[in-house]
């Protein structure tokens, strides 16, 4: 049977009598009532009698722990009576090391200060990001003049990981997107009998932007995430410390091969995605809309313009940089535990996608201005 916490107040004395069993004690109301009494300034002494205490577990120790802390804080006397050996040694253990670590940064809810701190955080991470991009550019420079510490084998591994290994998923998704574009387009175009223009729609859509965007999103989820996770885990394993103390620049060694690989493969993957999308569109056009293969092919080829094609490839190139920078940045600045690897990976993917959209906007505006 669980007993209740019994206490009585005798002028300035708070007397607590523990009798019977206290297992999984969960009467919060009684507990907080007791704490409130102990905090009351009328009380100048606390006596706890455990003569008839039966079985007990941590739920009782917690109550005593809190009471002692309150008593300490108020500098009043607390008098334990006939505590069982185990109970008093547990309490002693809890108070054995009392080193008051510096309190973690207060996260105040909503205030001017919080907004300021938030803004400052953004400013700081922006600077860190810029510094990282600077370092990466420097590392690229070193590759060009042949002074980089990058290992060829790392580059070829990275290259394989984001070319051959990525082909199946890029092919599948691009094919499906082409298919969907054709379907949706056909519904609209057929209402005025212009189904044949499905071919142009798919071709222009894929080459100008959709190929690059789809490849970008796939690669952000696939490769960007794996960069962040791989480099982050190295941070956790102290591998990056080991590199640094060996005099190896982690950017040269870990970031450059991955970035180079992605920047080289993204335009190629984009091209591949364009082709797969057109095939997907063709599949719908030929099998469902009954457009003759020959005709569909001609319409598609006519719709390809060098400008659109190059703009698409350029998008792919820029996205490659964005994904690689985001992935490696969050990997390098990962914390030192397993949890932070997960956080870094998420941040890498989310920020890569956001920056890709921002870059698309910028490129689109520039193209508009230049009338490309």
């Amino acid at each position, binding site marked *: 049977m669980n007993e209740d916490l019994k206490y009585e107040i005798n002028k300035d004395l708070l007397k607590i009598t523990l009798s019977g069993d206290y297992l999984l004690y969960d009467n919060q109301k009684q507990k907080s009532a007791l704490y409130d009494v102990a905090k009351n300034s009328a009380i100048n002494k606390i006596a706890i009698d455990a003569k008839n205490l039966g079985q007990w577990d941590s739920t009782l120790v917690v109550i005593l722990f809190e009471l002692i802390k309150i008593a300490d804080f108020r500098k009043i006397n607390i008098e334990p009576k006939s505590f069982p050996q185990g109970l008093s040694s547990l309490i002693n253990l809890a108070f054995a090391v009392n080193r008051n670590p510096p309190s973690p940064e207060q996260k105040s809810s909503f205030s001017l200060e919080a907004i300021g701190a938030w803004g400052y955080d953004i400013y700081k991470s922006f600077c860190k990001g810029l510094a990282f991009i600077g370092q990466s550019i420097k590392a690229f420079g070193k590759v060009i003049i042949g002074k980089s510490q990058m290992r060829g084998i*790392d580059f070829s591994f990275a290259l394989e990981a984001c070319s051959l290994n990525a082909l199946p998923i890029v092919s599948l998704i691009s094919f499906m997107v082409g298919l969907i574009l054709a379907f949706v387009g056909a519904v609209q175009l057929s209402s005025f009998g212009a189904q044949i223009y499905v071919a142009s729609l798919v071709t222009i859509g894929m080459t100008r932007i959709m190929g690059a965007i789809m490849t970008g999103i796939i690669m952000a989820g696939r490769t960007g995430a794996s960069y962040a996770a791989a480099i982050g885990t190295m941070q956790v394993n102290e591998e990056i410390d080991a590199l640094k103390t060996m005099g190896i620049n982690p950017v040269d060694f870990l970031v450059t091969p991955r970035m180079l690989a992605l920047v080289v493969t993204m335009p190629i993957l984009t091209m591949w995605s364009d082709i797969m999308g057109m095939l997907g569109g063709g599949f719908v056009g030929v099998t469902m809309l009954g457009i003759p293969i020959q005709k569909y092919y001609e319409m598609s080829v006519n719709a390809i313009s060098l400008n659109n094609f190059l703009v698409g490839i350029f998008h792919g190139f820029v996205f490659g940089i964005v994904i690689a920078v985001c992935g490696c940045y969050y990997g390098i600045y990962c914390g030192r535990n397993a949890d932070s690897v997960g956080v870094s990976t998420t941040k890498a993917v989310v920020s890569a996608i956001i920056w890709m959209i921002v870059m698309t906007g910028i490129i689109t505006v520039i193209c508009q201005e230049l009338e490309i």
Partner: protein
Amino acid sequence: MSDDTKQIIAEKLTVGYGDNILLKEINFNVNKHDIFVIMGGSGCGKSSLLRVLTGLVPPISGKIFINGKNFTGTNQQQKKQIMQDSGILYQSGALFSSMTLAENVALPLQLYRDYTDEQIKELVSLKLALVGLAGFEEYYPSEISGGMKKRAGLARALALDPEIVYFDEPSAGLDPISSKLLDDLILDINHSLGTTIVIVTHELASIFAIGNNSIFLDGTSKSIVGQGNPVEMLKNPPNETVYQFLTRGKQKDAQKTK
């Protein structure tokens, strides 16, 4: 004692992260060929001190001289030069997981020495054999046990025949026999190559077996509260904390009344 017997000199070194100061203005020297033990309670900043000594984190203030050269004030290039003369064994081994053991050990050689591939291969085999890992050249770090990872990490730390090797809790997570073997290995290296060893450890047996100089850090006063040969320190404990640490928590007064 002339100054060229001193390998590392720390002057008024303050270690910490931002506002959180862990050690305040500490001074100590490590002599050449010493096995220098850094002791102290958990969280008092031993690993952080090691990070400062190896140049991973700058100190908040103070100076470090390694072989008489100012380590804290130098630029990146000179720092690299100094670091080539030291090897570090991390708490987890910190092997590069994408490389085999042989590649791990070979990496510093490829970077800093103009050896031929053949020479490097021989050296790598030798270093791995020295730590008892002959025949494991082509294994990946994920395929070997924790103790073997530490030994492989040591082989990598020894690759360039460094003058100083730093250890962060080498025996943590090892069984008593392996940790004894590691101690013997450290002693061997110290004797045969004359390497200076700086070691963070909680293992009392190791402290007494191998340490010939030490400092005891205290987290509350953020300072050094004991210094010298651990065996001497046990005979003449400077204070209660050191005594309890070295005797696994015996009370000093209880000892006296015996």
